[in-house]
């Protein structure tokens, strides 16, 4: 059998040729917008895998198949793919469709463009043949290699094919009604198999910080780390020439004409009664400060000609929505949805996404994101193979290839 004498030159001609072909198609045909969804994607998956298997079984000695699993094909496609990712790294992926060169070539929506899809397909073929070559016959010393390469192949394959089944919608839950519909990014409405009713939205906050700021610029005076401090149990803080004592501190309070009282009204704000001694001059000032809320104006304390003592808005510790989730079959479940802690039901993941920022903690709505990704388990198989491969690699060091 003849042996193909193609090397790096030919490897790069092929992969760059495919890249250029992709850009040409993008330019003349526009963004492909192909989203393979169930069950077409599973047929494509099985078709692709069978085709690779058949070719490998009957034609593995063929010069082209041999070449596709060669180092020349591998390095040239990894490099070309890296180049494409480099473009994604530099060009903002806004995805808008203005009639200029960047958008005509799909450069601002590369991940859904022809060149990207074509390169990925070629990448999957090369990587696939590389794996098949090492897979038969299966040798123990190749386990690390196979975990790494197959893991990557599975991730890329499943992520690409599952893209069409990936759903990401947004629901605006409120206190008054049970909401059955959700929106996608283009504001298209969807009737959902589940409904959400908000029971209570809440923000837990850290204690606020106090800071000495420059009256004119509004920026923190002097050294940043010396002139800001979180209100804590310690009552005495020295900031520059000011000796600050916190006499009273309320996490939630309201202004009653001359003083703050702790209350849990809607629109309550943190406040503190502060006395400040100027270490240089000995002057003493006393007064209330608050970071304010949507109902309450912020109050600060004038320390001298240039400096103000202010309370900064408290930083959130935890966003949460207590909700009732109702399904079409009539089941009702209470759930708490938090950032980093989605709630899973009927193949959907529910995420805390937003709220009415003006009202903050007292928001009467909570924006919940609903995500469905049926191919996720396949991607996870790939991810865990790659994790196992990485551990293998760490353990073996360079020997893995020797």
């Amino acid at each position: 059998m003849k042996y193909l004498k193609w090397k790096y030159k030919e490897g790069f001609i092929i992969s760059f040729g495919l890249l250029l072909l992709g850009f040409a198609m993008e330019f003349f045909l526009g963004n492909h917008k192909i989203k393979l969804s169930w069950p077409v994607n599973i047929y494509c998956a099985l078709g692709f895998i069978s085709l690779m298997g058949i070719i490998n079984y009957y034609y593995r000695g063929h010069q082209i198949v041999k070449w596709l699993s060669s180092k020349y094909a591998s390095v040239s496609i990894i490099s070309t793919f890296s180049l494409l990712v480099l473009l994604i790294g530099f060009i903002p992926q806004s995805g808008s469709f203005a009639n200029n060169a960047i958008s005509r070539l799909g450069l601002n929506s590369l991940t859904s463009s022809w060149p990207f899809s074509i390169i990925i397909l070629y990448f999957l073929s090369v990587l696939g043949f590389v794996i098949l070559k090492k897979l038969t016959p299966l040798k123990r010393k190749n386990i690390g290699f196979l975990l790494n390469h197959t893991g990557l192949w599975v991730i890329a394959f499943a992520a690409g094919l599952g893209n069409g089944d990936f759903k990401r919608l947004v629901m605006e839950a409120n206190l008054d009604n049970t909401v059955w519909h959700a929106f996608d990014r283009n504001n298209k409405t969807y009737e959902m198999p589940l409904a959400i009713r908000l029971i209570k939205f809440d923000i837990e906050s850290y204690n606020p910080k106090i800071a000495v700021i420059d009256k004119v610029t509004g920026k923190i005076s002097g050294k940043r780390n010396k002139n800001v401090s979180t209100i804590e149990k310690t009552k005495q803080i020295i900031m520059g020439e000011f000796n600050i004592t916190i006499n009273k501190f309320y996490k939630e309070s309201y202004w009653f004409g001359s003083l703050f009282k702790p209350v849990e009204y809607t629109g309550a704000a943190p406040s503190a009664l502060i006395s400040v001694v100027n270490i240089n001059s000995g002057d003493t000032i006393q007064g209330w400060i608050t970071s304010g809320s949507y109902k309450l104006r912020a109050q600060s304390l004038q320390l001298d000609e240039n400096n103000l003592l202010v309370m900064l808005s408290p930083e959130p510790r935890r966003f949460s929505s207590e909700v009732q989730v109702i399904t079409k079959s009539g089941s009702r479940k209470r759930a708490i949805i938090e950032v980093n802690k989605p709630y899973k039901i009927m193949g959907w993941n529910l995420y805390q996404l937003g709220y009415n920022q003006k009202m903050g903690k007292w928001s009467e709505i909570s924006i919940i994101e609903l995500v469905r990704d049926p191919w996720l388990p396949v991607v996870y198989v790939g991810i865990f193979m790659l994790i196992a491969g990485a551990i293998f690699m760490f353990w073996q060091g360079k020997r893995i290839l020797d």
Partner: protein
Amino acid sequence: MIWVNYPLVAGIIFCFWIAAIIIYASSGGKKIFNVLGGVLTVIGIISLMVFIITLWNSLERPPLRTLGETRLWYSFFLPLTGFITYLRWKYKWFLSYSLGMAILFLVINYFNPETFDKTLMPALQSPWFIPHVIVYIFSYALLAASSLVAIKGLYLVYSGRPWFNTLFLADNLVYIGFAFLTLGLLFGALWAKAAWGHYWTWDPKETWAFLTWLGYLIYIHLRFFHPKKIKFQLWVLALAFVILIICWFGINYLPSAQNSVHTYNSKVN
């Protein structure tokens, strides 16, 4: 406030490590000096570890958020890597280099301490936070070291001296560093699923982390396929580190990164 104690602790560690470097440089192969240098190095590492643990306790959150805090971990892991490498392969110069780098980061933190406040935004409160960041920092420490080895390798190659052992060290560092880089990337993906609903969104930081990964991937494949063509590969290794630096620091300055979810300087959305 534990940060008040930093100058003292850092000062002590600084002295130990400088002493260790001097001892290593002048030991001339005497075993007793090597042992003494090792003891000083280890005392420094343990002191820094104790400081980090205390800081962690007082902040009531892992100190992994600000650049200043990650510099502390860097100063901790660099000498640790250097020392383990030293025990395994006896590269004294490499240990001295990692100590030097660690000292540099300690000094930067002394002159430029960040506000070490207690707040940690909800998006960062996750069991994935610590493994994700620590694995990355460890990986960056190793890969930074490998790029320095690459520069030394280039010098040796161009001046016609023997380079085999140097390249062997570079490869080992890249292999272990790359394994950790992969773990960091994948932990990030698993975390992203829990925090943002999808494991991969081509966020600029993700894209650049992936590019970094691809850079070292190319190096590994070239080394494997062409073990004798070293000049080009050493340049690839040096270049891969440039991408890593862009990913780590430069990302905030790129036009493509204006809406990155990895920019934690601004308030929560």
